[in-house]
């Protein structure tokens, strides 16, 4: 499904990614984990086109992704959510989600202006019906008409997911979908992701810091540290990896004893 080969990315002197390779199988939930600044978001940005790696190749569905423009990648079925919310704040939730359908709609500024003739109306209404399913699925009916900018953090994350689903993606990139959520909301979000994957057959690449979630729902995990891949494998294997433990996990308890304090 997705093949990342020898990707390297630099910002000036900063090496964000060094020689990263991994591949994601069709219909799996693949998690990227690693300490802050490891290059996880940068990796997603390379896949979705925000960044252009200096070296390496990314292949999706047999196509060379790096040759495609950013907006084109949505059209070929790559959806994504963002680490720091990136909704269209002044648009209503519905409109936000409809933007996801941009590449699926045909009407343009000419037919759009002549709404009633030229099929724009029909198409818009069909799209509207379409996204209603997504709204139901993510349980955001009550905020449909609110401007996205006034929603609370958790709801915004959900709307972002809805917007990405509206793209009708085959591959979904999720950047910390559960950050800033409480347990209950995380549970909801986990449920949505699993359902996306199982019911709709969407392949998911997810970045997440909550190890509980990662271990529970992902099929495979890759670990980045300082721009390098330090481990890859099944979730429970990876968490036992010593290198991963020291770089990322630490000891799994709530004690904050002042070991290092001095």
């Amino acid at each position, binding site marked *: 499904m997705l093949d990342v080969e020898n990707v390297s990315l630099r*910002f000036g002197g*900063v090496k964000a990614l060094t020689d990263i390779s991994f591949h994601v199988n069709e219909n799996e939930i693949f998690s990227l*984990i*690693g*300490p*802050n*600044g*490891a290059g996880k978001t940068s990796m997603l940005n390379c896949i979705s086109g925000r960044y252009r790696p200096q070296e390496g190749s990314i292949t999706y569905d047999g196509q060379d992704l790096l040759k495609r423009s950013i907006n084109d990648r949505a059209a070929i079925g790559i959806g994504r959510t963002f*680490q*720091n919310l990136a909704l269209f704040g002044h648009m209503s939730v519905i409109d936000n989600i409809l933007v996801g359908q941009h590449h699926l709609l045909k009407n343009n500024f000419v037919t759009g202006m002549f709404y009633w003739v030229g099929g724009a109306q029909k198409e818009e209404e069909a799209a509207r019906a379409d996204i209603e399913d997504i709204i139901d699925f993510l349980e955001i009916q009550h905020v449909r008409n609110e401007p996205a900018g*006034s*929603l*609370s*953090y*958790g*709801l915004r994350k959900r709307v972002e997911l809805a917007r990405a689903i509206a793209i009708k993606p085959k591959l979904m990139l999720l950047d*910390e979908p559960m*950050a*800033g*959520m*409480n*347990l*209950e*909301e*995380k*549970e*909801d979000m*986990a*449920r949505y992701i*699993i*359902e996306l994957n199982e019911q709709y057959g969407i392949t998911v690449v997810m970045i997440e*810091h909550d*190890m*509980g*979630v990662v271990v*529970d*729902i992902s099929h495979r995990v890759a670990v980045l540290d300082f721009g390098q891949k330090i481990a890859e494998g099944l979730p429970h294997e990876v968490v036992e990896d010593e290198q991963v433990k020291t*770089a*990322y*996990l*630490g000891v*799994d308890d*709530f*004690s*904050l004893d*002042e070991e*290092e*304090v001095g």
Partner: protein
Amino acid sequence: MKPQIAATGNGLANETILSVNNIEVVFNEVILVLRGLNLKVARGKITALLGTNGAGKSTTLKAITNLLATEDGEVTRGSISYEDDDVTEVGPEALVRKGVFLVMEGRGILQDMTVIENLRLGAYSRPDAKIDEEIEQVFKYFPRLKERTGLAGYLSGGEQQMLAIGRALMAKPKLILMDEPSMGLSPLLVKEVFRIIKRLNKELGISILLVEQNANMALHVADDGYIMENGKIVLDGTAQELMDNEDVKEFYLGGGGERRSFKDIKSYKRRKRWL
């Protein structure tokens, strides 16, 4: 309604560094977000404020520090007192000078400035600060910041969070309000951040009001806690009391005793309680 501190007894007044009395906050003159909220922060203690998304936690912190004006919000009822003074109307900069410092949600890093410049601005309210010395002090807590010489906007999430806390230290506050300091941090860093919070509290005696989604961690470091929903406090008590509360366990800490797997939630759903 003015706070009646005398009535609650002098002893308590001394121990309470901050008290929020029945405040109401309205945005854009029409949206009511806080609906009569009460809470107290004990001097030298860590108080956790937990709650669902959109409950109004961030709004509470901004109301305390009087930062709502830029978002077209205002406190329309109730009062806030800090160290026995009514500070409901006191401007944000005066509050910083009085020793109340907010570490904002999303960290509030000045992205187009360097780490050092960010830290220097932390001490803005203290013109007489010995900046260089104090910055070295902060680097003792956050050694990895020292190596970062570029713009703060290019720091990773964890580093930005440390910078935000470091900047708070530069202000030498008596009370720090923290808005989701662990958000987006790796497990290791989450721990480190909480450890630092605990240390600041212990070593420097700074009182802390901690807003968190990571309820487990928060209640572990906190002395007291509040749970808010829909603009109101619905539950309060010592951290231990809260941790033992069944509902809190269910909704914030995850399961009764055993941690349940996220995979099994699909069918499972129990809905809200306290309201």
